[in-house]
């Protein structure tokens, strides 16, 4: 893997990168008290559906079903098998070419692990100052412009 120069729009700095670094641009970075911030209330930006597993009856049933469908012979013995498709998806997610990758990534993510995020909203807050808006829960997966 080569190092992508910062200014190259295809890599980390481009729109595919933007999708993944939204929370950095919006939630990290310097904040100076003497400046105001534009309102982020009601912000509607592309946001990934949560894929971290949340315990609930629906989740249990869904996972039981997933186990049922799983091809047991394909996996356990030979180390966790990854379908080739996954490699490709990761590829396009990690360093997608350009704008298309943005929506591509969304599709990649909104797959099976889609779970209600409400329960996961504990907000591991790593910043000392309070945020000027509500948690990421209010951000919906919608693209502006």
């Amino acid at each position: 893997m080569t190092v992508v120069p910062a200014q190259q729009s295809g890599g980390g700095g481009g729109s595919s990168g933007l999708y993944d670094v939204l929370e950095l641009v919006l939630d990290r970075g310097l904040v100076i008290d003497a400046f105001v911030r534009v309102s982020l209330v009601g912000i509607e930006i592309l946001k990934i559906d949560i894929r971290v597993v949340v315990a609930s009856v629906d989740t249990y049933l869904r996972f039981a079903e997933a186990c049922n469908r799983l091809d047991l012979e394909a996996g356990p013995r030979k180390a966790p098998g990854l379908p080739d498709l996954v490699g490709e998806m990761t590829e396009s997610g990690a360093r997608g070419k350009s704008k298309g990758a943005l929506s591509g990534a969304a599709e990649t993510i909104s797959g099976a692990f889609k779970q209600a995020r409400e329960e996961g909203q504990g907000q591991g807050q790593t910043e000392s100052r309070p945020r000027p808006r509500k948690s990421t829960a209010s951000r919906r997966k919608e693209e502006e412009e």
Partner: protein
Amino acid sequence: MSTYVYGITAASHPSLPDGMGGVGDPPRPVRILKEGELAAIVSEAPEGLRPKRKDLLAHQNVLSESGAAGCVLPMRFGSVAPDDGTVTGVLAERADHYRERLRTLDGKVEYNVKAIHNEEAVLHRVMAENPEIRALTEANRQAGGGSYEQRLHLGEMVVAAVKAREAEDATDVQHTLEPAAEAVSVGPESSGWLANISFLVERDEAASFLAAVEQVRTGHPHLELRVNGPLPPYSFVEPGPDKPEGTTLGADHAEE
């Protein structure tokens, strides 16, 4: 006329993005405000600026462009000062602090790593590691899917096992990559990833950091890793005298 601020850098920065297109439609030209040894990268703040994709990108692009040639402290998106004078005033007032940050972060970039499980692969893994789950699955299959209670029971066990793996894998990712980084900043847990970790990496060491990422990929085929960088050091600008929780700037890796 209010002033949109992208970042703070040294006045001696070799190639500031003077004239580059910034936020707004049409894009407002980027200007440089100098104050002593420091400079602010600014533009006019458009009326009614909102965090639209185009503007977020513009913010990020201005910072990437200027960060490529020298250290820039990135502002959070949407920072607006009432006027240029306020900006230079802040630079003058907190000059020591910003100079210290610029020195500390000089030559370093941020890499953000996010990890999620590939569901099918992690299920295989969980089954391989847990004979009980495997047996229950087989039993349910024999029974044509199993009763509601049986499915619930199996699902509960699987979810517990997957969650345990999530936590374990998050730790693994961090511990494997940490030695290749100068500092680590763990992002909010709620943003939809089992791991969302930013690493501060020496620009010259980026290759070995990315090699470490590949190592994680190889060792954890059930993980999908998304790596973004080099980025302006968004997650490492704030510490100053008080480090925020979860940030270990200048951690001693010799112990790893």
